[in-house]
């Protein structure tokens, strides 16, 4: 391997230098020597046992069912021909079908075993291993070798994509590209969690983790390297900026160059931005997480939202960041906008192989929404709020009860938060320090983050009680209010200041409008206004407002005029579904009487749609939300 040039040098150099950038170069390689420096001894070892291996492979090969062999050959052909529809079908259904049938509880055959079927094609074998390890992680329990080898395989894949001469001609479906990045980060997270559990490690594992290689594998720097390399290679940020400006496809292609104009690199670049968002959240760096997203527009119109899993992940992590920034309004708007979408498309994606995963994330977002609602009740989307009350009604009522509600906050947070990780391994390289580590382990990352969150909650514990008292009056002497609440007057006045602060928030809802205070509630879908995700304007988040004149508290309340939009949207959508259902159903037999029922007059969620898939939503439905 040639010398490692750190990016801050590379950036100033001419563009042609960049073509030679190595995966490990983009961020420099701090104290982690090459991943493959030990390749030589390994090859020698391989030679010694080569003969036995060939025989073992032959035996294993004979065990592979014919259906699987045919599938692999077919899959291989689809990939060499860049036949996207065939690749998609093999990837999304063929692989899963074969897994269910033959490999539900065991590994797929090793890549070396199936190599003869695919002409020993190195690229196909890398992709095959990608799937092989993903299966190990999701269905079985990966051992230390799996963890190391899956990392090496990912590096090989990324090296091929980033360091071939020019962009590769390979094409893969967007969904797979997302899964590659998503899985890479998942395995990183999984490794970090596994690595931190010292007491479960065997001596052999400890000695492997103590080596140079063990210490450098799955390091934060190497993971960030990969993501930043894709972002830079694809010029995705330049692409997003150009797209925002409305430039023509031709002009955009000129800007993003030979890599960025290819679908494969553009999507990998975009998914890497979302990947960075996720990695930064896992490490507790919420501002940086939102900052890397600064060129991404959060709306449902871009082509990048075609991969639902990516779309959902983006909103989950962005919403979570807002919550930790105490921007509860932005957080709930983010969750509402994606949960509404999921609700609309649930008839589609129930067939997706990722349905379960998406549903789990959605349920977490309902829980996070419940937290945000408890901290900043204001006006919210009725439909989502009703669903939250159905799922988390009990927690919602506990969370409004001051001190005793803290436990409900904690439970929901721990259930719904990302799987936080620590950036650094335990001191495997020194046994005495390791023993010290085991004796007094540092707090789990999730515990640290929940405690920080709870300190925010604790600071405004008195808010719900105070608010409910103030609702009863238009003006009131502070001393009298203190008497009601069994408090000292001074302490009560301090809590009033906290109440005031809790009813103000920085929010993106305030952007765009001229008067910040018009932006109450969820009128503009999150992300529709200009500016990065960290931007915002101070808004009032509560209908109840007050001011103190020396010792007299004056209270005013905004009331809401009757709302129609949500009701009309839901029922129009329902009518559309009924209409589509009727249109798509077979002609009725003469004696059939089962016409779909008319929508209920009440403001309730519509009944599930009929069997037929909904072909399109109401054109204007997706972007309008009840104020």
């Amino acid at each position, binding site marked *: 391997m040639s010398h490692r040039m750190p990016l801050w040098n590379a950036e100033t150099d001419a563009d042609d230098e960049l073509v030679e950038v190595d995966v490990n170069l983009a961020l420099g390689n701090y104290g982690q020597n090459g991943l493959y420096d030990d390749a030589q001894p390994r090859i020698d070892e391989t030679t010694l046992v080569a003969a036995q291996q060939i025989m073992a492979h032959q035996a294993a090969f004979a065990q592979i069912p014919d259906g699987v062999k045919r599938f692999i050959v077919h899959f291989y052909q689809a990939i060499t021909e860049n036949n996207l529809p065939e690749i998609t079908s093999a990837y999304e259904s063929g692989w899963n079908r074969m897994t269910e049938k033959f490999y539900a509880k065991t590994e797929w055959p090793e890549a070396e075993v199936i190599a003869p079927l695919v002409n020993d094609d190195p690229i196909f074998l890398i992709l095959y291993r990608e799937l092989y390890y993903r299966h190990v992680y999701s269905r079985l329990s990966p051992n230390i070798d799996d963890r190391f080898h899956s990392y090496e395989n990912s590096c090989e894949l990324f090296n091929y994509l980033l360091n071939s001469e020019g962009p590769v001609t390979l094409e893969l479906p967007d969904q797979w590209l997302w899964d590659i990045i998503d899985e890479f980060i998942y395995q990183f997270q999984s490794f970090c969690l596994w690595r931190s559990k010292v007491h479960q490690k065997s001596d052999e594992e400890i000695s492997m983790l103590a080596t140079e290689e063990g210490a450098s594998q799955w390091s934060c*720097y190497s993971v960030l390297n990969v993501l930043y390399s894709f972002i830079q290679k694809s010029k995705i940020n330049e692409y997003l900026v150009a797209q925002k400006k409305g430039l023509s496809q031709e002009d955009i292609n000129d800007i993003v160059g030979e890599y960025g104009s290819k679908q494969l690199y553009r999507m990998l670049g975009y998914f890497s931005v979302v990947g960075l968002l996720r990695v930064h959240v896992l490490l*507790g760096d919420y*501002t940086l997480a939102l900052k890397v997203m600064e060129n991404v527009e959060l709306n449902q119109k871009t082509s990048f939202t075609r991969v639902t899993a990516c779309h959902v992940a983006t909103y989950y992590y962005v919403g979570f960041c807002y919550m930790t920034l105490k921007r509860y309004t932005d957080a709930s708007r983010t969750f509402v906008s994606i949960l509404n979408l999921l609700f609309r498309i649930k008839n589609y994606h129930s067939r997706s192989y990722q349905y379960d995963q998406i549903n789990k994330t959605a349920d977490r977002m309902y829980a996070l929404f419940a937290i945000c609602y408890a901290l900043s009740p204001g006006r919210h989307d009725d439909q989502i709020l009703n669903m939250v009350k159905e799922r988390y009604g009990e927690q919602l009522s506990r969370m409004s009860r001051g001190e005793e509600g803290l436990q409900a906050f904690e439970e929901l947070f721990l259930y719904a938060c990302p799987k936080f990780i620590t950036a650094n391994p335990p001191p495997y390289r020194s046994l005495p320090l390791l023993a010290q580590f085991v004796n007094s382990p540092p707090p789990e990352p999730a515990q640290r983050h929940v405690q920080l969150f709870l300190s925010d909650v604790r600071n405004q514990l008195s808010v719900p009680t105070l608010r409910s008292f103030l609702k009863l009056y238009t003006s009131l002497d502070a001393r009298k209010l203190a008497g009601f609440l069994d408090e000292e007057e001074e302490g009560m006045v301090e809590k009033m200041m906290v109440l005031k*602060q809790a009813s103000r928030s920085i929010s993106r809802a305030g952007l765009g409008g001229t008067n910040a205070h018009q932006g109450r509630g969820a009128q503009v879908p999150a992300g529709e206004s200009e500016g990065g995700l960290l931007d915002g304007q101070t808004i009032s988040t509560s209908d109840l*407002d007050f001011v103190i004149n020396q010792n007299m508290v004056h209270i005013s309340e905004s009331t809401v005029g009757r709302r129609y939009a949500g009701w009309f949207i839901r029922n129009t959508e329902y009518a559309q579904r009924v209409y589509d259902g009727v249109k798509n159903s077979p002609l009725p037999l003469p004696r059939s009487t089962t016409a779909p029922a008319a929508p209920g007059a009440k403001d309730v969620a519509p009944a599930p749609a009929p069997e037929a898939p909904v072909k399109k939503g109401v054109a204007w439905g997706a972007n309008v939300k009840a104020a």
Partner: protein
Amino acid sequence: MSATATWVSPSTRPELIDELVSGVDRYNPANGGILEDYLYHQIRSQEYDCLANLAILKLYQFNPDLYNGDVVINILIKALTAAPMPDFNLCLALLGERRPYPESDDDEPDPLPSLLPYLTALSELLHQCRFPEFWKLYKSEPLAPLRENYTIECLGFDDSVREVVVRAVRAAFTKIGKQRLSNYLDLDGEDFVSFVEDVDWSLEDDVITIPPNPDNRIEATVVHENIQFPRA
């Protein structure tokens, strides 16, 4: 201008720092010193740049060997007075990991562990608007090391705390009694009068009047639904 513009990118931030904070250079441990120097510049000149300081903590997170307890304490002191914004907790979120074990016994002990509980308590008092208790704790005997080794170097620390008070009072009051405000600000006599004048509040008969602002002007309104249809 958005309310976060100054926070995201303070006008006092030099171009070099801006490049570091916005690019991948922020991960280069060799740049730690530049960011630390910039922190000390903030300390000396009453400036504040949260994102640049978080970049230091990020470097410490990835490179525990770089860790410097004094720097962390200074970052936290700066973040303390950003209340009610979440800066202090944002810093702590990057901090919690195990610090490197001391190489030998004669290393200077890390000053952070003994001060962190007090800093956290101070932060909570500010977020809970318990200003008189804040001053009481801040001036107490156990916090002498914080005052004598750190905040004394931090230009205008007391005034930054008073700005937290001003933000809270301005939003909640139209008029406030002199004694109450004096307790909040920990000022009396001449100092109190000149502080009140500096923020353009008026003092009359032991009552301070706070000029109307978007947060202390309340009115009952009826909110109507406002639906915008996107045009194709």
